[in-house]
């Protein structure tokens, strides 16, 4: 069953279109990714889900409820991790969760039990009385996620959860999110890290300039647009026309990225050896597994010659 559905969803700010009539749905208990560069419309899309941005046109249902008329009921069942840390700087770590719990009308005793449990889960048990400002970036993020879980939400929405974190802190957050998903929580995640999307998401949409370019599982997206491998040819862009003509039966597509040429081979190893036997030699050859980054480059055309 779909837990979120958007139909022709539009968001405009003072006449500027941030979200351009998109359609998507999120299944219960999956990790759903919204992938795109800055300014793609990811944040606007998730903000509409919890009523922080009123929708301009179209329909958006969360948990079967219309967001325009049922914001309060919806918010009671969501956990929100915003892009900017907005922990309460005037309160200490444990108090942050207790006060937040009070906004959900959770009784104090229950709130305290849950808060201690979540702080334990996020490795913050020895920081109960610490000032929020004194926490590291990774700890603040974990605390923000712990806060979002205080109402036992059915859906957790994370807007760029690991932006600005060092790799180790990022992996800690990923690990916790995987654990959450295994407990049956639906997770919605915006990110511009392709690795993050590949690591966590069951299904994702790729957005750019307010539009959805494609959607599917990471595997489907790779298969549809790129294939299993890519072959990078250093300084190969100048010879792109010749090469793609010569090998058009051996590749399913190509892309010029700056000075480099990226080929999507049917059989990478074989193509590589044939290229290396050509009279014309190139700067370097790199045969590697395809990633979502390749899909993204292909879809947005970023890196193409202007």
């Amino acid at each position, binding site marked *: 069953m779909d837990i979120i559905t958007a139909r022709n969803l539009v968001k405009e*700010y003072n006449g500027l279109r941030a979200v351009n009539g998109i359609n998507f749905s999120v299944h219960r208990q999956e990790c759903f990714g919204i992938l795109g560069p800055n300014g793609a419309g990811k944040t606007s899309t998730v903000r509409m889900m*919890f*009523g*922080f*941005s*009123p929708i301009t046109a179209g329909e958006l249902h969360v948990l079967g409820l219309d967001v325009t008329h049922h*914001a*309060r*009921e919806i*918010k*009671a069942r*969501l956990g*929100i991790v*915003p892009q*900017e*840390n*907005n*922990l*309460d*700087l*005037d*309160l200490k770590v444990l*108090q942050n969760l207790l*006060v*937040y719990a*009070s*906004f*959900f*009308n959770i009784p104090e005793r229950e709130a305290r039990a849950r808060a201690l449990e979540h702080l334990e889960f996020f490795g913050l048990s020895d920081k109960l009385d610490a000032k929020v400002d004194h926490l590291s970036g990774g700890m603040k993020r974990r605390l923000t996620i712990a806060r979002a879980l205080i*109402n036992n939400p059915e859906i957790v929405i994370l807007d760029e959860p690991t932006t600005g974190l060092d790799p180790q802190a990022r992996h800690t957050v990923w690990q916790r999110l995987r654990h959450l998903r295994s407990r049956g929580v639906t997770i919605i995640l915006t990110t511009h890290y392709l690795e993050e999307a590949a690591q966590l998401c069951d299904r994702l949409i790729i957005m750019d300039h307010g539009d959805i370019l494609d959607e599917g599982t990471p595997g489907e997206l790779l298969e549809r647009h790129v294939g299993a491998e890519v072959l990078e040819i250093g300084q190969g862009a100048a010879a792109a026309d010749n090469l793609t003509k010569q090998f058009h039966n051996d590749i399913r597509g190509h892309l010029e990225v700056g000075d480099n040429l990226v080929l999507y081979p049917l059989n990478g190893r074989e193509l590589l050896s044939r290229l290396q036997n050509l009279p014309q030699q190139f700067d370097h050859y790199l045969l590697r597994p395809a990633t979502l980054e390749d899909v993204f480059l292909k879809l947005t055309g970023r890196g193409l010659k202007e």
Partner: protein
Amino acid sequence: MSNTLRMDISPRVFKVFRRHLTVYRRNWKVSLSFNFFEPLLYLAAMGYGLGVYVQAIEGLTFIQFLAPALIASSAMFSSSYECTYGTFIRMEFQKTFQAMVATPVSMDEVSLGEILWGSFKSFLYGSVILFVILVLGLVASPWALLVPGVLLVSGLLFASLSMIWIGLFPNIDSFNYYFSLVITPLFLFSGVFFPLSGLPAIAQTLAWASPLLHVVNLTRGLVLGNVGMHLVWDFVWLVVVAAVLMPIAIHLMRRLVIR
């Protein structure tokens, strides 16, 4: 668009108020002592210092005349600071409002919570001054017991006025202008330091529009036991203006935050 003027308020507004109270409980001693220090300086410098050179006003010594009005001005300043700088810092720099509206709390409840909190500070700081002048023997009548109620209403009014300013000029530098163009003139020309009866008729008419004038009339009347229908009208004036300003403030804040 049709429902932009309808307020979305539930008892959750008291959760917002309680959040402010929780924060305040951590530093109330420092905050309270600083806030009543300033009116005390006025009382000492103006009342005891300047007062020696001032002839009796309406049959009162200058300090008897001034002290009850300082309850009113102190209440005005406390809610005005709270709901300009305090509110703006929570909204713009700490993103506290954004965190609250991600919960079942509505933006209207966040704004009303701010107004109630500003009103509470007026009540608190005004009452502290009332207590001080009681100790100094400057309270003449048990009617003074009604002063805290007046402070709550005046707090609602000045908190709303401050947040309307934020809604119109959402910039921390603009608050300087709010204090120099609005609050300070009110402080100087609302009968705190001298009776308005000496001013030209036009100035007296203008002063009638000053909320602080009505608060001063009430605190002075109640503290000195000079009560009558005129005080009822001052109170009605405050209630009506506060009731008009509050929804405007809530509407402007919603327009500012929810986009």
